[in-house]
């Protein structure tokens, strides 16, 4: 009897236990929290009356400045230092959307998208890839005055800083002015650009087109390079990663001025006076570099336009030659009368236009001097040189045969320059 009664109670308990439950979990629903987050981000973006200063570091390198004013109606006004015309304000659209994370999308074309444009003619990026930049960003870190964003596809980084009224008026203008100052670098006709800070000197490679700076220095007797992206600032440039060597740490170049009379730049580095000047020779020659380059042999190095002389690329007008594609530099191409020789081969497009042919080339036997130069003695030419190519080939041959020889400057894993040791005013850019 009692058993049955208990059994009934148990049943009742078991079957009524599924009580009505409002909502899947305590608190707000996920989508409510998400849309609240989006609203909060948008509120913050439009809260700055003078907009936001921003620096974008595309995954492909370089640093680019922007000035954004986000508006309530999902439109954004921007200026940039990406090119000369980007100082003119442009209004486009943006929106906030939940992707994998709450994201800020710049969803119609603007200055920012120039970096992402897959058309190589737009800013010289890679075909089908541009500068590996982003226009869809996740919010990574947010404080009231600084918003850090990460690109959703490429992983570029962009930092937004709340702007003041003064910024709104002069941020981009100041930056454009310093980009203008640095463009005087084209007045240097020598290969080497020497940074002098007190007693410290470094060779610099300033790639203004891609906004990448490379320092060449020594650790003991070992030659090293350090490359990082930079962005222009009012008065100079800011490095993305600081350079530290020989007791010097460099995060920025400030108060940069071009001195036309002396053809040099005056600047300050961490408060100390410094100069950037052109030079005929490197600060210190890596005596093994040329020999190592030659001994590595194997695959050829490419040079799309041959020698640069006095700052003029393709000084011998190779690119104007019929069917010319590029020069190939083969180290240890072959052996002639017991002498190993290197080849500057002229690669031409074949008649069908779908393959390269090595039609002819200049052969030269290299010797290596104890001070690190490589000197070529020309053995002759191989193959048949078309009549229309003869002038350019002879000029290239004479330049290559310079009896002072060349320094081999390795600028990265995949790039190197063969720089005339005579005066540093002629060089052959190579890449692979």
């Amino acid at each position, binding site marked *: 009897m009692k058993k049955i009664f208990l059994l*009934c109670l148990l049943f009742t308990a078991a079957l009524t236990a599924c009580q009505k439950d409002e909502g899947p979990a305590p608190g707000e629903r996920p*989508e409510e929290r998400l849309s609240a987050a989006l609203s909060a981000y948008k509120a913050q973006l439009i809260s700055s009356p003078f907009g936001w200063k921003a620096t974008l570091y595309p995954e492909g390198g370089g640093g680019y400045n922007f000035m954004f004013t986000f508006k309530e109606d999902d439109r954004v006004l921007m200026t940039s230092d990406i090119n000369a015309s980007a100082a003119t304000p442009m209004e486009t659209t943006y929106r906030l959307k939940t*992707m994998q994370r709450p994201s800020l*999308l*710049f*969803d119609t*074309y603007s200055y920012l998208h120039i970096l992402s444009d*897959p058309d190589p003619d737009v800013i010289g990026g890679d075909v089908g890839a541009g500068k*590996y930049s982003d226009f869809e960003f996740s919010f990574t870190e947010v404080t009231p005055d600084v918003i850090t964003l990460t690109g959703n596809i490429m992983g570029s980084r962009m930092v937004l800083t709340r702007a003041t009224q003064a910024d709104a008026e002069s941020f981009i203008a100041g930056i454009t002015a310093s980009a203008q100052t640095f463009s005087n670098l084209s007045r240097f006709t020598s290969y080497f650009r020497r940074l002098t800070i007190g007693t410290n000197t470094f060779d610099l490679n300033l790639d203004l087109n891609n906004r990448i700076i490379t320092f060449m220095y020594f650790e003991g007797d070992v030659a090293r390079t350090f490359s990082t992206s930079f962005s222009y600032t009012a008065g100079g440039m800011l490095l993305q990663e600081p350079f530290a060597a020989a007791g010097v740490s460099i995060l920025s170049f400030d108060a940069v001025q071009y001195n036309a009379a002396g053809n040099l730049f005056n600047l300050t580095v961490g408060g100390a006076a410094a100069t950037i000047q052109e030079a005929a020779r490197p600060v210190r020659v890596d005596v093994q570099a040329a020999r190592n380059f030659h001994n590595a042999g194997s695959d050829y190095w490419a040079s799309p336009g041959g020698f640069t002389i006095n700052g003029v690329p393709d000084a011998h007008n190779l690119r104007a030659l019929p069917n010319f594609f590029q020069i190939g530099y083969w180290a240890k191409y072959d052996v002639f009368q017991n002498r190993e020789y290197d080849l500057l081969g002229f690669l031409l497009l074949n008649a069908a236009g779908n393959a390269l042919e090595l039609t002819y080339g200049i052969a030269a036997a290299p010797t290596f001097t104890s001070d690190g130069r490589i000197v070529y003695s020309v053995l002759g030419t191989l193959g048949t040189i078309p009549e229309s190519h003869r002038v350019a080939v002879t000029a290239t041959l004479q330049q290559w045969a310079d009896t002072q020889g060349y320094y081999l400057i390795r600028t990265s894993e995949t790039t190197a320059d063969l720089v005339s040791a005579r005066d540093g005013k002629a060089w052959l850019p190579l890449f692979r």
Partner: protein
Amino acid sequence: MKKYLLNIGLLLLAATFTTSCSDEEEVDISHIDFTPDSWTPGAVDNWLLQNFVMPYNIEVKYRFDRNELALDRVLAPVREDKVIPVMETIKYTWIDPYETEAGSSFIKRLSPKQFVLVGSASYNNNGTITLGTAEGGRKIVLFVINNFAKTEKGEVRQMLHTIHHEFAHILHQTIMYPQPYRNISTGYTASWNDYSLEEALSRGFVTQYARSSPDEDFVEMISIMLIEGKVGFDAIVNSAPAEAQPLFRQKEQLVVQYFKDAWNIDFYSLQTKTQTAINTL
């Protein structure tokens, strides 16, 4: 007593069954879109609403939406100031000629329902670029919009090529073209891109892609005849070897017949109207 208690027990049990889970709550999933895609409508949105959504129920997506596109391609969004000129052109050179020939409900009923605009080209791994794609007669993606200009007739034709091509697919998927069309040319192949245009022409294919299948052949014929006009099409036919020319004429005749029988459209009149539209942009 025993029985009385048992009855109470049964009663309780019955009550339990009927009341315990009686509230049929609706399955409570999200009422809010996780990925809201809304913004304050601007001048472009209003223009599209008036000219495409309201009359034709066609959505035009111009604000970049990654979900509509290949994730492994680097693409740039469209310039806002290109949207209206492009869509005006599409209306003027594709919708309007069909409407005048086939009546106002024709496009409303059969058109693809979504256009997606992309600013840059889509770069393929084999060195080619894609100018337009279409999915199942519903969605058409148009690339390289940022280079669009009404005065660049070559590019206007290239863009229309995609639209006319895809629309012709919808037409023949709705009413099939005559079977004899399939037997006019031989040599359909999936590796159509390995063969030159000259080879395609010598077999009676109007483009290289027309070689890929009879369906593609049929819609390429329609598309080329419309965008190039009678003069342009005749020039293509005359550039083909003499023995292939009758093949083009047979196909042309079947296309004209198909438009008359299936849709009661005078194809030559449509062709003329399309040409006039392109030339008077």
